[in-house]
């Protein structure tokens, strides 16, 4: 009864491991993709006040003007993007922003370039939008950043857009000015659209700076920037994100959003007006940073595991090839023998094979214990 397009997309590979993990009582999960911190009190209070004040109806399609204004200010200040409240769309999580972006730019058969390994939803969402995902492999040797010639070799007359994420899920790698500038050349030369997923923008270490491709010369009119509140403000359940674009791109995504979603959760929008306090984020990032270092060092000390130090997000993506196991075998082995859950790298694409994704959304104490258990199960 369902379309061939939908039937052809396999269920998420992460799910199977979560199910396996839930069978054990004493499991340490390095599998989840959300911060273990709580939504800031000020945000929760604002949400409660909104409910009490009956602000529980549709908001305008595009989203609360005050919230869009705050977001536009941020985009100008932190992302160097020329923005006004009129080109910000509030969405139900950045996931919706991604979906409407793809649907807005793709005609049937259009190709979208993604960098493998990529967030698991990219390829399916491209397919659902009628497009064809085209994976450009990346490798650890290059810090999981795509090489220009590899991208160029995948460009055809069907290529419509480039979709990428920095800081990256699952690898934690961050694209610098040089890499983004290289992408810019390809995008402009081939008249493509950039869909830039920047949901991990705030979670970045070692003085690295986050750059938005929309801020590069000639890119403003051909970029859709995606972001949200989930990761920076530990608010995954509020389902609130946003997209920024100019001109017809913006009109396109807004049109789809207004027909399919009408408006994003109004209560969440009122709550997130209080989300812009960066002291909470800084505290969280400091704690993430400590965990990152302890986890990288702990994994590197285990024979058979190599782990590069990621520059952003809250994932490490260690190489486990020397153990002689595939990603899936390794992840399954850890669940059964170490009571530690990780996500096998191959669910993020072919280039993820030989790796696993470990998120450090657990305390330092648990990281220490997880490393101890992994070490015992491997050696």
């Amino acid at each position, binding site marked *: 009864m369902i379309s061939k397009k939908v039937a052809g997309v396999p269920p998420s590979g992460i799910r199977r491991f979560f199910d396996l993990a839930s069978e054990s009582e004493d499991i340490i999960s390095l599998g*989840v993709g959300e911060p273990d911190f709580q939504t800031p009190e000020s945000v929760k209070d604002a949400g409660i006040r909104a409910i009490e004040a009956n602000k529980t109806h549709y908001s305008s399609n595009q989203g609360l003007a005050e919230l869009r204004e705050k977001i536009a200010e941020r985009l100008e200040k932190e992302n160097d993007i020329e923005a006004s409240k009129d080109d910000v769309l509030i969405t139900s999580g950045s996931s919706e922003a991604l979906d409407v972006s793809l649907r807005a730019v793709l005609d049937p058969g259009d190709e979208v370039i993604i960098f493998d390994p990529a967030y698991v939803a990219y390829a399916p969402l491209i397919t659902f939008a009628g497009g064809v995902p085209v994976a450009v492999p990346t490798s650890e040797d290059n810090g999981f950043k795509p090489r220009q010639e590899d991208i160029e070799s995948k460009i055809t007359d069907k290529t419509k857009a480039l979709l990428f994420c920095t800081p990256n899920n699952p690898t934690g790698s961050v694209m610098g000015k040089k890499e983004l500038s290289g992408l810019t050349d390809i995008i402009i030369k081939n008249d493509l659209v950039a869909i830039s997923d920047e949901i991990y923008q705030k979670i970045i270490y070692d003085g690295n700076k986050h750059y938005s491709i929309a801020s590069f010369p000639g890119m403003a009119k051909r970029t859709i920037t995606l972001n949200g509140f989930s990761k920076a403000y530990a608010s995954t359940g509020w389902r609130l994100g946003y997209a920024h674009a100019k001109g017809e791109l913006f009109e396109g995504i807004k049109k789809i959003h207004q027909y399919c979603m009408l408006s994003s959760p109004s209560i969440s929008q009122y709550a997130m007006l209080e989300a812009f306090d960066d002291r909470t984020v800084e505290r969280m990032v400091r704690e993430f940073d400590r965990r990152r270092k302890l986890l990288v060092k702990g994994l590197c000390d285990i024979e058979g595991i190599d782990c590069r130090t990621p520059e952003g997000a809250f994932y490490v993506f260690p190489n486990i090839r020397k153990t002689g196991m595939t990603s899936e075998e390794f992840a399954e082995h850890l669940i059964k023998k170490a009571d530690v859950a990780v996500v096998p790298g191959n669910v993020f694409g072919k280039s993820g094979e030989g790796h696993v994704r470990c998120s450090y959304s657990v305390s330092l104490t648990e990281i220490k214990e997880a490393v101890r258990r992994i070490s015992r199960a491997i050696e």
Partner: protein
Amino acid sequence: MDDKDLEILEILEQDSRMSDKDIAVSMSLKPEEVGSRIKELKKAGIIKKHSTVIDWKAADRPQVTAYIDLKVVPGERTGFEELANTIASHENVTDVCVASGEYDLVVKVRCNDIDEISKFVTEVLAPKKSIMSTYTRFVLKNFKENGAIMSAKAADDKQIYTP
């Protein structure tokens, strides 16, 4: 005290068993530097003590805890200090503080049973001249202690989601 000391305190407050080496790794410092900083923090009286939060009930050694509020006549030159120190020196007393409000001192005691606590109140506290009255509240159920969730089943209602 600098930012690094603060960070060390933050880490130790969460888990006092973190080794110098692990703290060093997570802060990109040398273990010796962490060690000497912790030593200084102890010397300065900033780090008081490392302890373990134990659920004695789960260990089948249930204990009785009570908060005892005291109305006190302050000493002429010493205020509440002399009495507070005397009470603090008692081994069953886990916390003593001066508080605002109707009562002056709040004392937390932990004993093996109710009798021991009542003995403490009637024989140790009540006879003291400076204590005008006591108000004892027994703990019925403990949910969180020193930052540790004490109920057997910690609230973990995380839903499974994908991707």
